[in-house]
């Protein structure tokens, strides 16, 4: 190839560049490249979770349960409806929390889903979780065993995080509290660590979602450690009176204490006769 030839070729390319069609072609090419790169990247195993193959038996079992028990409100393809949210992308964690604690299927739509005896056993719950996570990636469900809260959690740090982020609804000792219009933050006493973790990452009912950027996984384990410690802490100083603050203390003063004292007064006044 001569230099002349090359120059001619360059001219041809630059002429092409100036044509009107050049812009749109470039945009399409760029989109194709980025799209392909993104597709490859998201197909890589990530921290989020690998959606099980859409054809795995677990998924089809989960889909069968879903169609029977959940689709009347959440839609045939979990796309949601007028009375229930879409479940695409909520992840296995949300399913494990909501179904595992018996909140879903919901018994009563008036206030909020309440904890009750679970309708589905752990295997069925896992199948449901697999089906929901096959629809789109989301936070994966966890197990009590793979949460190393005893090793990685710091109780004192957890207490501070709890008082900053959780106590405003769940009370200083995790006893639960009232929200507006009959909604409530439930008591956290006796709740399994994995459900606490899943609630934090999925934000069920009125609860905000605490992403790993807001509260890191290690901090979440600290919160669980503190809750476990509060749950098992013996009551210093006698009966706890419900750990709800001075309300019950006042009740005791107005019933037991003054009752005893008035009783004794009456007895003393009687004896003098």
């Amino acid at each position: 190839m001569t230099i002349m030839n090359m120059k001619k070729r360059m001219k041809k390319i630059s002429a092409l560049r100036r044509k009107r069609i050049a812009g749109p072609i470039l945009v399409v090419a760029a989109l194709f490249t980025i799209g392909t790169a993104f597709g490859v990247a998201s197909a890589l195993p990530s921290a989020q979770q690998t959606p099980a193959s859409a054809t795995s038996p677990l998924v089809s079992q989960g889909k069968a349960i879903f169609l029977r028990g959940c689709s009347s409100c959440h839609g045939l393809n979990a796309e949601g409806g007028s009375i229930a949210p879409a479940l695409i992308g909520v992840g296995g964690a949300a399913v494990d929390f909501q179904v595992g604690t018996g909140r879903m299927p919901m018994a009563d739509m008036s206030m909020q889903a309440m904890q009750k005896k679970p309708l589905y056993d752990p295997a069925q719950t896992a199948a449901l979780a697999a089906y929901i996570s096959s629809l789109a990636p989301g936070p994966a469900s966890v197990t009590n065993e793979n949460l190393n809260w005893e090793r990685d959690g710091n109780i004192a740090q957890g207490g501070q995080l709890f008082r900053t982020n959780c106590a405003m609804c769940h009370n200083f000792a995790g006893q639960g509290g009232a929200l507006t219009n009959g909604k409530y933050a439930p008591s956290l006493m006796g709740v399994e660590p994995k459900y606490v973790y899943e609630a934090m990452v999925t934000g069920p009912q009125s609860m905000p979602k605490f992403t790993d950027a807001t509260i890191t996984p290690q901090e979440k384990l600290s919160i669980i450690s503190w809750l476990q410690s509060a749950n098992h802490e013996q009551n210093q100083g006698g009966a706890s009176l419900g750990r709800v603050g001075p309300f019950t203390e006042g009740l005791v003063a107005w019933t037991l204490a003054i009752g005893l004292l008035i009783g004794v007064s009456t007895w003393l006044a009687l004896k003098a006769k």
Partner: protein
Amino acid sequence: MADKKTSPTTRTGKLAAGAANYADDRLGSAGYLKKNLNKIFPDHWSFMLGEVCLYSFVILLLSGTFLTFWFDPSQRDVVYQGAYTPLSGVSMSAAYASTLHLSFDVRGGLLMRQIHHWAALIFMVAIVVHLFRVFFTGAFRKPRETNWLIGIGLLTFGIIEGFLGYSLPDDLLSGTGIRIAEAILQAIPVVGSYLAFFAFGGPFPGTSFIPRVYMVHILLLPALFLALITVHLMMVWYQKHTQFPGPGRKESNVVGYPLMPVYMAKAGGFFFIVFGVTAFLGAVASINPIWLYGPYTPGQISAGSQPDWYMGWLDGLVRMAPPLETHWLGHTISWNILLPSLVLPGLIFVGMTFYPFIEAWISGDHREHHLLDRPRNVPNRTALGAMSIAFMVIALANGGNDIIATHFHLTINGIMWFTRIGLFTVPPIVFIITKRVCLSLQRADRDLVLHGRETGRLVMLPSGEMIEVHEPISDARKWTLTQHQQPEALPAPLPEEALVGWKGKLRKRMNEAHNVQVPAATLSELKELGDSHH
């Protein structure tokens, strides 16, 4: 005893007599002691409510002194390294850390803290129940109006003292309370923000508030209490105790037992019983578990934050206040704080303070009274008292609306609306019902005197008629049930010239309402019935 000059024969007796003579020769104490040790007090269980207040105050002084040995009233930052591990390594104020130290590292410290706090609750409950007794029996009437005023003072200072006391540990709950107190200060129009800056020595929370509160809590207010309680008791001593009506009991005498030995023994024993009840609660029931609340940080708050009960009604009023706020000439007036936390309590306390004078103005009764009223015999006053209690209970219930909501599965908004409406509608209904109940009880008394007690024995007469046998009640009981003043017998009914104008008309209307009564059974009625009775 000294003037009888009976010489003791035993060795101990001689020693005691010698000591008594020694004191008498120098202080002239025999006459004083004789007069005062023989002082007569009437006996009734409700007269011991004031004693409960006094004894819990003594317990508060003793246990409080113990607490001061370890408590450090400072807001400087420390890192906790004590025995309570869930907080180890947490940064907190020295006040909070020293309270933790007091609770977990000082022998008997937690028990003392709990005794102190329970004694405070019992102190306030006993003051309020004592107030009920004084109010419903009319013990505040002439000549005891001044003692009523002192009592109101003690109640007011008690509320403040209690609030300041539980604010000291600087825990998350009490810090929230101090924040609300700051908001109330700021709600005072125009000068509020300056006052708050003055109280906190700068912006909230600052570092000077707790040291200041400490001085007021352990020095200023206790001194004030001591002074007021002393005057309160001296006046009871000087004016003599009131007594319930009964045979032989008159406005001019006191029927009861002497201080020595009866009341000395009783009061001494009762002190230990009050201490016992307080110590029992301190030992078995946790109170103000500050380690669970955590240290105070303005960025944190707990659901269901409550004040102690004697502040709870204020909290309830604030919680139910509608969100009203006006901006005027560069000043913000927060009516939602100002009205429920300052204006309304102000009105309530002013009304309570002046009640003895208001009632005397309405009734026109300015005579001295040493015989108590049976509550049913003054229906208007009793109804007013019941109405005030209903108001307070509703306000208090809303103060705990979140706890009630979670524990009874109710909606917090529903409770708020119930109390918002109930605050205005329930007290009048309670007034009407109480007044009717009082009048019915008067009617029942009248029946009891005229027709005797229902025995529940049914007898069939030969004619086939069934009757219930009524047994006449004792003459003493008859006297007690009929002795009360009838309105017609008031010495000086309101003079005509006092009843002109709107004020006079109002006074006349209130006087009529005050005097509504079922006439007590009279002797002639009794005699008339006696002739025709079976």
